[in-house]
């Protein structure tokens, strides 16, 4: 099972729980994005965006509407929600969590390769 972002060791969040997390983001004034990908490799930071980032929302119901639309169109992908904080000094993602997983998840394992002088090279495959 892919674990990345917040809450990923927990069982999948219910819609009510997602709404509460989204409300937390909105109340802090963060812009919320919905992203999806079929390649959840940890090195793949650039997921596809579902629509535009959502600014100036007052209520999380609209974001859940987008998440559901994305789930409907891409049921067999990973979907995550990320919240971007634009305050000076932060200017980065403050919270990110997965809201949808495909029915069969890919497995990754760490591979070690020995190179010259007994150095180790690592790769996640």
């Amino acid at each position, binding site marked *: 099972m892919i674990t990345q972002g917040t809450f990923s060791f927990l069982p999948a969040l219910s819609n009510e729980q997602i709404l509460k997390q989204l409300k937390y983001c909105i109340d802090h004034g963060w812009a919320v994005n919905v992203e999806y990908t079929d390649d959840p490799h940890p090195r793949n930071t650039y997921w596809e965006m579902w629509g535009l980032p959502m600014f100036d929302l007052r209520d999380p119901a*609209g974001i859940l*509407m*987008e998440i559901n639309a994305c789930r409907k169109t891409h049921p067999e992908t990973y979907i995550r929600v990320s919240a971007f904080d634009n305050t000076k000094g932060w200017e980065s993602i403050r919270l990110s969590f997965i809201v949808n997983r495909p029915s069969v998840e890919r497995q990754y394992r760490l591979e070690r390769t020995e190179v010259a002088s007994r150095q180790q090279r690592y790769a996640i495959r």
Partner: protein
Amino acid sequence: MSEPAAPVPESVDLDAERQGSGIDAVLDQLDTELVGLVPVKTRIREIASLLLIDRLRRKLELSAASPTLHMCFTGNPGTGKTTVAQRMADILHRLEYVRVGHVVSVTRDDLVGQYIGHTAPKTKEVIKKAMGGVLFIDEAYYLYRPENERDYGQESIEILLQVMENHRDDLVVILAGYKDRMDKFFQSNPGMRSRIAHHIDFPDYESQELLHIGKLMLAEQNYQFTSEAESVFAEYIERRRQQPHFANARSIRNALDRARFRQAGRLCQQGGQLSRQSLVTIEAQDIRSSRVFD
């Protein structure tokens, strides 16, 4: 082991619930600050009562689907449609029907795009911003332009209809516009008509009410009439009503703004020491020099 459920009470206290929601304060404010508009106020009281009773019923675990609260405000210009929409959001918020209680006020430009594929995201963005509150669409009939079959307004209407049906708990849509054009709009969009539960018609104000409104507006800006100016203003209202393009309270506000200009001009010409009294007073001559009296 599950905890025993709390027993459902046999009765509930209406008065306590009423006070807890603070709804009376908003309704009283509506009564004192908005002059006239009796049918509108009655309708709003009805809606408020229904929501209050619904809340009590929920306490007794009597389930009922939440009512549709989409509304349509029709009336001539300046009859207070926008003002009431603002209040409506407040009322619905206090009764916990909407979660946030803000008003997003839009017109055709904010909903309809300029090229293919532009409208849907634009409309959806507005809807998302309005969720948890009230979406106020002013002059809604412009959304539908029958003379241009390639107009994107129809697409916007379809998205709105879908959201009005599926996200009833998340937002309340209020359409506003002039009566005759709204009627035409509904004729060509029967789906819209049936999804709107409350059609509220805003009547024109009586002259007496307009005078009252004028005085309230002045008081808000720390001005006052002399008694002579008040009777002249009453006459002004009578005359202005006969003229074309009379926009009820909006015309009154404009007339008062012009009176303030004239008062300022008069004071500047006069020069010298000005008392507090002279700064706040609108004299009869400030109103009489309006072209309405020509």
